[in-house]
């Protein structure tokens, strides 16, 4: 399963928006998937990502699925956010 984050916006910054995105994903994208499913999170097209938004989405997906892969992480805010989550949340 590939999740394209740009479908949730280009500037992803707040926790409430992240919570809403995760709920939508859970209802329409990841519902019924086995925890062994490979989840690809595609960051292409994202301009601004913050730890607050990502903590509500990426951290929860990482807890739910065993194999989570990150694609197209070149944007500096994506890199910095993933580093922050790696250090404090995952």
């Amino acid at each position, binding site marked *: 399963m590939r999740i394209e984050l740009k479908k949730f916006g280009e500037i992803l910054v707040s926790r409430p928006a992240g919570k809403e995105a995760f709920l939508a994903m859970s209802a329409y994208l990841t519902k019924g998937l086995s925890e062994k499913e490979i989840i690809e999170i595609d960051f292409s097209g994202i301009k601004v990502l913050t730890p607050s938004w990502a903590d509500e989405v990426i951290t929860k997906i990482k807890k739910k699925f065993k194999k989570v892969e990150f694609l197209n992480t070149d944007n500096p805010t994506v890199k910095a956010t993933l580093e922050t989550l790696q*250090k*404090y949340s995952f």
Partner: protein
Amino acid sequence: MENIEKQAWQWISERAENVDISSENYCKTRDIFQARLEKMTRNSLESGKVDENKVYMASAIAGELGNNSFDHNIGNWRDIPGTFFGYDFYSNDLLIVLADRGQGVWATLKNVKPNLKDDREALNIAFTEIISGRSPEARGNGLKFVRQSVKELNFHLDFYSGEAKAELNKKFSVVDSEKKVSGCLAILRVKR
């Protein structure tokens, strides 16, 4: 002091009845803040005055700081809800200011650390420890992200709350503030 900075100081220092809530920099709700953050990002990129990657990082920092105002003061503003959010270019540098008339960092963190002794200790902990006034929710990584990003990109951030000021650049320090700020005030300088 630049004009936008003066406006932020004025916004946070005035008596409530004198605050200009018709200002285009006033974001009463989070949705308005989000829309203006997107506009700032777009305008900054179109100006070509600041490197693209720095614009994205500055937007992420402003996003964290602005949303913190809403996260920690919702339902508990001292008087005027929302944030003052402004930006401008000076000598090709981008200056971003954010201010809220909320509870401030010390009062917020005392919910989880009742023994915190003053504003300086509160600011120091806010930027260095994983802690959030919204415990038991697991959160509190935003200001650590801000601190690390400012350091790596050679930005400069002055963050005021109460009688303390955190100065962030390559180094991090907390000192007494020259003026008391009831709430929070952040001044971010992004060098070209």
